[in-house]
C-alpha cells in the first residue's frame, strides 16, 4: 500500500512545510494537492473535537523526512526518540503537567477547554519528542516558526515592549472572552457566546497574528524563489543546448566562413523564434502562412547555405490553397538558391484582406525569360501551373545580370470564410 500513489514510499516533505511537512508528504504520496490534505486535516481536527490533532504529530514522529536517506538506521524522528530516555521523561513530565492543568480546569468548570484539551496531552508529548530529536535542519525551521514568540526574551528594547504589550492585551481579551463564554453555562444571555467568541478570536489574532502573517509571507517568498530558480534553470538549459553548442561549432569551423555564417544564422533564427514567438525549433507542421514562410527559410538556408531574408506582414491560418502557394514559393526560393548565384534571397509575404502575395527575389544572374532552358521551364511551369490550379497567379520577371523576381498572388475573397480568416489572421 505504501508503494502506490507517487510510486515512492511515504515521506514527509520538509521543503513544502507548514508544520512538519506531513500534509505535503501525504499529498505527494497519494497524488493530492498539499492544500487539499491540509484542509482535510483541519476539518478532521474540528469535527473530532481535537482528537485528530495528535495523529498529525504522531505522523511527524513516525514518517521519515524525504531528505533522510532510506538506508539510515533510524530514519524517523520516532525511531531516534526511542533511545532518548531523557526526552521521553521530559515529554511524560510536560504531558502530565498539562493533564493536571486540564484536571484543575475541569474542576473549576465543566467547559469546552477539557473537551478540546485532552487530546492535546498526546500532542504535547509528541511535540516534546520531536523538538528534542529532530535533525538540526528541521529544528532550525521550527525555531524560525516560533521566533516571534522568542523575541519576548531575546528581542531589543522596542521589540520587547511591543510584544509584552501584545501579550498583555491578548491575555486580557482572552480572560474576558473565556469568562464570558464560561458564564454562558450559568447565564442565559443569547448574545454571550457570540461576544465571548469574538473576544477569544481577537485575542488569538492579536497574539498569533504577526506569526501567521510571517508564515504566509515566508511561504509566498519561498514559492517565488522556487519559480525564479526554475526559470533560470530553463534558460540556462536552453542557452546551453543551442547557443553554446553553436558557438563551439563555430570555433571549430572558423576556417570555413560560409559554414560559420550558416551556423550563426540558423542559431539566430532559432533563438529569435524562441524569444519573440515562444516557439521551440522543430515544431510540428506549420499552421499559419508566416510559419510556413519561415520553414522555407529554414530549409533553404540549411540545404543550400544561402541566407534568406524573410519579411512577413500579417498572418492567417493555412488551407489547401495557401499550402499550394507556399509550395510554389518554396520552389521559387530553391531555384533562386540553386541557380542565381545571389548571396542573399529575399522572401516577402503579405496577407491582405482580399489576397495573399508572396515575392521571391534575388539579385543574381537572372535569365532571359523568353529563352528559358528546358529544365528551367519545367520548374517555372510547375510554379505557374500550381498557382493557376488554385485560382492564383505567378509572375516571373528576370533581367540577365540583375536578378529575378517571382511574384505569387492568391485571392482570398473567392474562398468562403476568407474574410473571417483575414480578421483572425490580423489578430494573431
Amino acid at each position, binding site marked *: 500500500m505504501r508503494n502506490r500513489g507517487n510510486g515512492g514510499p511515504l515521506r514527509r516533505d520538509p521543503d513544502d512545510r507548514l508544520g512538519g511537512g506531513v500534509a505535503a508528504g501525504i499529498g505527494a504520496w497519494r497524488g493530492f494537492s498539499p492544500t487539499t490534505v491540509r484542509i482535510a486535516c483541519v476539518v478532521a481536527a474540528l469535527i473530532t473535537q481535537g482528537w485528530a490533532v495528535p495523529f498529525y504529530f504522531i505522523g511527524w514522529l513516525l514518517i521519515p523526512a524525504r531528505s533522510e536517506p532510506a538506508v539510515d538506521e533510524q530514519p524517523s524522528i520516532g525511531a531516534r526518540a526511542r533511545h532518548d530516555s531523557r526526552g521521553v521523561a521530559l515529554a511524560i513530565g510536560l504531558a502530565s503537567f498539562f493533564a493536571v492543568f486540564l484536571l484543575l480546569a475541569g474542576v473549576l468548570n465543566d467547559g469546552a477547554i477539557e473537551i478540546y484539551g485532552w487530546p492535546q496531552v498526546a500532542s504535547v508529548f509528541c511535540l516534546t519528542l520531536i523538538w528534542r530529536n529532530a535533525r538540526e535542519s528541521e529544528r532550525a525551521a521550527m525555531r524560525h516558526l516560533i521566533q516571534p514568540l522568542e523575541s519576548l526574551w531575546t528581542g531589543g528594547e522596542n521589540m520587547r515592549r511591543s510584544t509584552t504589550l501584545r501579550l498583555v492585551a491578548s491575555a486580557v481579551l482572552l480572560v474576558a472572552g473565556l469568562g464570558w463564554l464560561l458564564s454562558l453555562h450559568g447565564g442565559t444571555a443569547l448574545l454571550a457566546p457570540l461576544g465571548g467568541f469574538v473576544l477569544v478570536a481577537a485575542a488569538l489574532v492579536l497574539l498569533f497574528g504577526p506569526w501567521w502573517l510571517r508564515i504566509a509571507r515566508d511561504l509566498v517568498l519561498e514559492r517565488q524563489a522556487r519559480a525564479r530558480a526554475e526559470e533560470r534553470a530553463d534558460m540556462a538549459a536552453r542557452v546551453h543546448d543551442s547557443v553554446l553548442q553553436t558557438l563551439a561549432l563555430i570555433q571549430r569551423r572558423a576556417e570555413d566562413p560560409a559554414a560559420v555564417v550558416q551556423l550563426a544564422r540558423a542559431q539566430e533564427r532559432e533563438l529569435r523564434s524562441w524569444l*519573440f514567438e515562444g516557439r521551440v525549433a522543430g515544431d510540428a507542421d506549420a499552421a499559419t502562412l508566416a510559419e510556413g514562410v519561415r520553414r522555407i527559410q529554414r530549409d533553404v538556408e540549411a540545404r543550400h547555405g544561402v541566407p534568406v531574408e524573410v519579411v512577413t*506582414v500579417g498572418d492567417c491560418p493555412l488551407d489547401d490553397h495557401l499550402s499550394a502557394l507556399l509550395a510554389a514559393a518554396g520552389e521559387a526560393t530553391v531555384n533562386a538558391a540553386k541557380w542565381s548565384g545571389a548571396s542573399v534571397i529575399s522572401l*516577402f509575404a503579405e496577407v491582405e484582406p482580399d489576397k495573399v502575395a508572396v*515575392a521571391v527575389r534575388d*539579385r543574381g544572374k537572372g535569365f532571359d525569360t523568353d529563352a528559358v532552358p528546358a529544365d528551367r521551364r519545367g520548374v517555372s511551369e510547375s510554379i505557374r501551373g500550381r498557382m493557376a490550379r488554385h485560382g492564383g497567379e505567378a509572375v516571373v520577371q528576370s533581367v540577365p545580370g540583375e536578378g529575378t523576381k517571382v511574384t505569387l498572388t492568391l485571392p482570398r475573397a473567392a474562398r468562403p470564410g476568407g474574410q473571417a480568416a*483575414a480578421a483572425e489572421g490580423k*489578430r494573431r
Partner: protein
Amino acid sequence: MSAAPPPRVVLVDDHGLFRSGVRAELGGQLEVVGEAEDVAPAIELITRVVPDVVLLDVHLPGGGGQAVITAVVRDLPQVRFLALSASDAPEDVIAVIRAGARGYVTKTISTADLADAIRRVADGDAVFSHRLAGFVLDAFASAPAAPDVRPSFDPELDQLTNREREVLRLIAQGYTYREIGRELFISAKTVESHVSSVLRKLQLSSRHQLTRWATERRLA
C-alpha cells in the same frame, strides 16, 4: 557630398565587442567621437559632444534606446538617431522610431550599408531596413477590425497612401531606393520623400491602431 566633412557619430550599445567592431569598421569613413554603454552615460555624452548621428541600440539596460532619445531630442533637435539591434521585437523597434529615431537597421547589416545609412540619416533622410518596412506595413495594415467600418473618418496621418505602401513593399523585398525608383518610374529622390513621409506618419500618428497593434503583438 564628398566635400562635406564626414558625420560625427556616437555609438550607444551595451555590447562592448559590438562597439569596438563598429568603430574599427567605420573608423576610416566616419568620425566616431564617443561611445556609451547605457542610458545615463549616453545622455551625458551626447549633450557634451553634440554629434551629428547617434547609432543607438534598441535594447539598453537602463530603459532602452527610446529613453535616450526622449531625454535628448528636445534640447538638441539637430542630433539624429539611427536605431539598430540584433533582437528586434517589432513593438520595441516601433517605440524607438516613434520616440524620434530616423531609421532602423539590423546588426547584420554590412559595413558599407551601415556607413551609407549613417550618412543618409545625417542628411536628414529616413532609413528603413527591410524588416522595419515589414513592421510598418503590419502596423498600418489597412483592414479595419470590423469589415463594415469605413476608415473615411481617419485623418490623413493614420493611413499610408498606395504609393507609400508600394515603396514599403519593395523595401521589404530588399530593393534599394534607386531600384525602387526604376520599378515605379519615379526618381530616387521621390522614393526618399515617400519614406520620409511614412516616417512622419509613424511618429506623429496618434491613431489607436498603432497602439492596438503593439498591444496585440505583445499579447500574442
